[in-house]
């Protein structure tokens, strides 16, 4: 029998299907609440198997509508689906309007779906790491397929999509997006290109253009991106989209590089956590430190430069250890 250590109460509730426990744990992750750490530590062993589909692309191409169509498709096949929809926070007020949920058409009692809207809040790295942890919580709660929608602001998309197992880049006809998408760095991350709004004229041309571009590019990890055409509102092409996603999942899981890739990702996460902790500790210990204030005075009057000041701070810390 597979024996596991007893879980903390919040983690136990989440695993046994308590949706509010899941919702609260997600909030704790977003808030950087230390309470989330215990839950994530306890649940880590139950994660890592989910299919995580990232959907990225410019404003209004139909990502949320596609999410809705995919949810319908997957629910009809008995799969439960977790959704994370990330929108940017205003850098000035910190506020945001999270409107992706509008497109979701599920009966209110369908427990096979859990939809969570997330604001990007602080840094690009911060939202990517929060998204990764939220996906883990969803998986531990039994949602073995997770869809992640992000709005097309290149940097954030690319960072978040490092946590996806299959990346879908969505475009629509006549947006002049192909070039934009390339610029945003999205082209390189795509495992599947989806030309949505195929019910509008120009979709075939867009598909052809993308296919040619995809054929020109070098295959990443031996995978050449597939191109599919969908209409999220008809709907049509949804089965083809899912088939392409599954094809990539099958390729990925069979890849001999799979374990090495997983090791790379987890190594990066450990380093990132160490760095964050060290930075936070340092910031706390420097706060109100008189020697820093004195150094700062000299830097302000240009009798000391910031680099040397940083070296002096580090040397002082090392001595105090």
């Amino acid at each position, binding site marked *: 029998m597979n024996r596991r250590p007893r879980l903390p109460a919040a983690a136990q509730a989440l695993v046994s299907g308590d949706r509010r426990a899941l*919702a609260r744990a997600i*909030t704790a992750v977003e808030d950087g609440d230390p309470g989330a750490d215990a839950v994530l530590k306890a649940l880590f062993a139950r994660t890592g198997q989910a299919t995580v589909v990232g959907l990225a692309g410019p404003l209004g191409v139909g990502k949320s509508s596609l999410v809705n169509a995919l949810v319908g498709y997957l629910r009809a096949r008995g799969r439960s689906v977790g959704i994370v929809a990330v929108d940017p926070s205003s850098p000035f007020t910190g*506020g945001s*309007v*999270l409107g992706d*949920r*509008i497109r979701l058409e599920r009966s209110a*009692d369908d427990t096979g779906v*859990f939809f969570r809207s997330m604001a990007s809040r602080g840094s690009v790295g911060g939202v990517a790491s929060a998204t990764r942890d939220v996906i883990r919580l969803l998986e531990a709660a039994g949602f073995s397929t997770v869809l992640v929608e992000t709005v097309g602001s290149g940097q954030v998309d690319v960072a978040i999509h490092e946590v996806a197992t299959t990346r879908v880049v969505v475009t629509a006809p006549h947006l002049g997006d192909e070039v934009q998408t390339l610029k945003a760095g999205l082209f390189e991350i795509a495992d599947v290109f989806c030309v949505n709004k195929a019910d509008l004229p120009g979709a075939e041309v867009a598909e052809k253009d993308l296919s040619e571009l995809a054929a020109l590019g070098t295959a990443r990890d031996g995978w050449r991106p597939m191109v599919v055409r969908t209409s999220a509102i008809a709907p049509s092409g949804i089965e083809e989209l899912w088939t392409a996603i599954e094809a990539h999942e099958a390729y990925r899981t069979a890849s001999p590089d799979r374990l090495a890739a997983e090791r790379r990702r987890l190594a990066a996460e450990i380093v990132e956590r160490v760095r964050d902790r060290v930075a936070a500790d340092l910031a706390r210990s420097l706060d109100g430190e008189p020697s820093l204030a004195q150094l700062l005075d000299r830097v302000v009057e240009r009798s000391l430069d910031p680099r040397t000041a940083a070296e002096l701070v580090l040397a002082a810390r090392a001595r105090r250890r």
Partner: protein
Amino acid sequence: MSPRPAKSPIRVLIAKPGLDGHDRGAKVVARALRDAGMEVIYAGLRQTPEEIVRAALEEDVDIIGLSILSGAHMALFPKVLALLRREGAARIPVFAGGIIPDEDARRLRRLGIRAIFGPGATLEEIVRTAQQLARGPS
């Protein structure tokens, strides 16, 4: 894992139950709350009380704002409150906006709607009240 750290943004659900055709007013309020630093989950038009409560729980919001013009408030608002109670989430404050006669407003307040804004309410008033309700008694 509660209460939330004071510096975390307030999460608010804005929904429009009933069959109203447009949501201009609700959108204006949503933007004002965003500009005040809140994370506004905008659920859109024609939400049933069940959908509203489900969204509120999944999104783990601190407060719910309901907007209505169609006159169905006496049927729909108490339903939302009852569902929240059933889910053990009665402590999530609910405020409302729309065209609501004084007599109805009094009854809705007695039932547990914490604040009601008519067409004359200013955005400042709404934002301030939402902040106070979300942060709880201080």
